[in-house]
Structures are given as C-alpha cells and as structure tokens.
C-alpha cells in the first residue's frame, strides 16, 4: 500500500459505537476518526463516558455494537490477533499501573522482550534512551514504589513508547498527581505530541488541552456533543452544555509558555462552585 493512501486511513476509527452498562447508555452512537499524527482531546463532565470510550479503543471494554478499527483493521475479539493490535496502541492510565514487582528498567523492557521478542541488549538500550527522554534514567534500577507519582507516570509513558505504538491513549494522566508534578508529565506528553504521535487524550487540564489539541471532542451523557478546533471550542462553544461546563474552568485565552499554567483552578472551582483564576488573565 503506498504511503499516501495509508496516511488517509485513520489510525483510530470508531463507527456507530454503542455500549451499555446495564440500563446506562454509556456510549451513544459514537463516531470518531483520528488521523495519523493528530492529537484529539476528549473533555466532558464526570461520568460522561470519556474513560469508557478510551478503554474501548484497545478493548479493555467491549462494545455492544458498532466497529472499531486501528489503522483500518477491525479490532479482533480475542486471542493473539487482539494482543497484536493492542501492542500497537499504547495506553497511559490515571493510576500509572507500573508493574509493582519489577524495576523501572524491567517495566520498560518487559513487553518488547516478551511480546516483540526484542533481544535483551537492544531492549535495554532503547529503554535507557526512553527513560532518559522522560528524565528518569537515574531511577532505572529502583522499583515503582520508590518513585514520585510524576516520575512513575513518565515511566509509564516510556513503557508505552517502548512498543513503538501507532497511537497512544491517555486517560486522565495527571488526575492522580500532586499539583507540582502535573507539569512535568504534561511536558512529556506535549513533546511526544510534537514528535508526531497520534494521540487520544482524556483530560481535565483545559489549558493543556487547548495547547496540545488539534481537535477537541466534548462528551456528555455518552454522546459527542461538540467536535471542533480548540479555538472554536473554548472561545465560542456551540452548546449550552459545553458553555456551562467551561464556566467551571478558567481557560486562558492566550497561548502560555510551557509550564506556566496551573491545575488547582479545577479543584477549587469544582469544590467551591466559583471561579478562581490561577492563570494570569490575558
């Protein structure tokens, strides 16, 4: 297949996806295409189905109907084929999920060695380069519990990258972090995005979303309500639901220098129901 044609096939494609948790219609006719190199950010209120959507893409959640394709290939239901497709889609979880009984280095080399049969020497070399890229190479021989949350999440990103995935899924990668560690993780994600990785990101970090996204998806009650560019979405949301949602956040209208934004605003406004701006108004 010539490259131009392959580039037109979406890396991630969801077509008429439906899912129920009992009576709850958690994914309601979801259609979504993520092109090669595109960064799509999903936002929406709690319980709107963002995590579920993210997890269906590598079949950690099954769907009731519809189709999910990765690089044009339909997601197999089970077995080796499913595992192979999963290995092509990296996933970063809210709770890091590093393998607790393995060292940092072992965490990163495990899948390349056991899934891709990469020789150990090469796996270690690549792992050390990745760990260096995310700034934790000095921790390589420690176990996860000895690292800070921010360091663990950066290792988790390196672990996913070690499989050379076509695309990466992030499900609230900074929601379990202390405020001072959020930026170090967002910086790494931004760098990976700048290198052209195809990404689907669920986040509550609005300023980060605005900076990094090519496209914003706004979800509510299992449906995609809006799909637009960051500028259009944050400056002129089309639906009342999105306006109401955004009013709880303070999104800077200017493009801030890297690392200049805060996330405490979200928690403060969420709890107190008022607008507290932690970012300098432009």
């Amino acid at each position, binding site marked *: 297949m010539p490259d131009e044609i392959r580039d037109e096939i979406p890396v991630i494609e969801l077509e008429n996806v439906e899912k129920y948790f009992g009576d709850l219609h958690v994914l309601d006719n979801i259609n979504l295409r993520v092109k090669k190199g595109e960064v799509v950010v999903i936002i929406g209120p709690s319980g709107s189905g963002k995590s579920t959507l993210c997890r269906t893409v*590598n079949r950690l959640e099954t769907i009731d109907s519809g189709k999910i394709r990765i690089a044009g290939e339909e997601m197999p239901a089970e077995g080796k084929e499913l595992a192979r497709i999963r290995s092509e889609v990296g996933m970063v979880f809210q709770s890091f999920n590093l*393998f607790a009984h393995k060292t940092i280095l072992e965490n990163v080399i495990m899948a390349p060695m056991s899934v891709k049969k990469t020789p150990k020497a090469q796996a270690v070399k690549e792992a050390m380069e990745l760990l260096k890229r995310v700034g934790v190479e000095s921790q390589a021989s420690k176990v996860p519990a000895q690292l800070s949350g921010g360091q663990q999440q950066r290792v988790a990103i390196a672990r996913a990258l070690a499989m050379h995935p076509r695309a990466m899924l992030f499900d609230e990668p900074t929601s379990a972090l202390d405020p001072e560690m959020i930026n170090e993780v967002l910086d790494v994600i931004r760098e990976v995005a700048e290198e052209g990785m195809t990404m689907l990101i669920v986040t509550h970090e609005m300023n980060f979303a605005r900076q990094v996204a090519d496209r914003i998806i706004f979800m509510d009650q299992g449906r995609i309500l809006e799909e637009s560019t960051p500028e259009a979405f944050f400056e002129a949301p089309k639906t009342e639901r999105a306006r109401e949602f955004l009013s709880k956040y303070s999104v800077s209208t200017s493009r801030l220098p890297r690392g200049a934004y805060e996330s405490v605003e979200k928690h403060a406004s969420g709890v107190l129901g008022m607008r507290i701006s932690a970012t300098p108004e432009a």
Partner: protein
Amino acid sequence: MKKSNRKSIQNVLYENPGPRMRARIRAATILSLFLLLLLLFFIVRQFLITGQLDARYWSFFLRPTTWRFLGMGLLGTVEAAALGGIVALVSGFFLMLARISRFGTLRFLSMIVTEFTRGIPTLLFIYFFFLVIPQFGIKMPPLWKIALPVAISASGIVAEVLRSGVNAVPKGQREAALSLGMLEHVVFIKIIFPQAIRFVIPALIAELVIVVKDTSFAYVVSFPDLMQNAKVLISNYDALLSVYLVVAVIYIVINYLLNRLSLFAASKMKIEA
C-alpha cells in the same frame, strides 16, 4: 526499608509512648516477668515432688543412640512434611487455577474439592489412606500414606490463600499488561502470580507449619517420624514427660526455622508494601 517489621507495626497500632506510658510499660514488663518466674518455680517444684526430674527419666538422653533414634524420626518428619508441603502447594495451585478459570464447571468442581478438603479433619484422610486404599489393592510406601493425606488436607486452604493473593493484585496491573499486547496467560505468569505470591507468603508458611504438625499422625500408618520414634522411646524407658518435652522443643525449632525462612524469602523478593 531495613526497619524491623515489628516496630513499624507497633507504630501503626499505637502512637509513640510518652513518659507516663513508658513508666507503665516498664512496670507491666517487670510484673509479668515476676509472674512468669513464679509459674516456672511451681512447675519445677511439682516435677521435683512427683519425681519427674529423677535421673532415670533423663539419663538416657546422654546416650548417642537416643539422639540417633530421635534424629531418624526428625528426618522422617522432614521427609513427610517436605513431600506433603510440595504436593499441597502444587495441588493447591491447580485448584486455585481451576477456581479462577473461565469455565463454570471447572470453577464449580474446584469449589467442591476445596470445601471438601477444608471441611474434613486430616486424621480422617489418613485413616482413608491407611484402611481404605489398601483394600483396592493399591500398595503405597508409608511415607506417601502420611504425606498424601496431609497434603490433600492442606491443598484447599493453599488454594484459597493463593486465590486471595491473586484477588489482591490491583486490576490495573492486568490492564496495563494487556494494553502492552501481552497474552492473558503470560500476564498471569509474569505479572499477576508473582505479585500474588508475595502478598501471601506469610499465610502460606502458616499453612506449611500446619502440614508439619499434621505429619505427627504418622504413627497411624507406622511411618517412623519424630512422634512415632518418641513413642518408642517412651515405652522403652517409661519416660513420658521428659521425651514429650524434648520432642515439643524440636517441633518448635522446626516451625521457628520455617518462619525465619518465610521472612528471608519475603525480603529476597523486594516486597513493597
């Protein structure tokens, strides 16, 4: 990381004692030491009165043959316990696998077997191997006649202990491994089980201690273990109390060593609580 375990547990249960509490702890220590000495005094006095400390009850412990005989018994106990322990661990592992399998019938069968082995006293299994099995014309060496029933009796609990360990592994570990493209059985072997076993080492060792103690029923099938040989000494020298005391101490030492082993194993596996 090298902090002693007991200390950290005490720190969890109680706050650090202040000066008044420290004084009270000291008083309690002195009082209980005194009571303990008093108890020991009465025991020894009673022994003296009833003549249990007479030379004839103890002098045969000076003969090497006594110790060689006890040593052979100890060897028998170790053999039976090791064989029984290994069989219990292996069969418990497979029972656990069946219990968490995807197939309902397997799960059901495993549950029945587990409940069965847990609910029946070890001695009944031993009598089964001693009385019933030979009637089917199956010949078995005495070592197996004690090791197998003891193992069967422990296997159900081993299975449940292992299963509780598997359930204690956070489900994110499995999801992360699956998302990297690892196959379900590889995930279990490389990620889930190694963590599960770390969680349950203390409980497993506790079960092995029970295996050791259960082998003391070996006299039923005439297998020469520590207890069986002790009984021979007792009837030879007509010395019940002294022999039982010595044998009790030997059992305590074995099980103490088992416990040390578990601590050693735990520390070797870099457990992070």
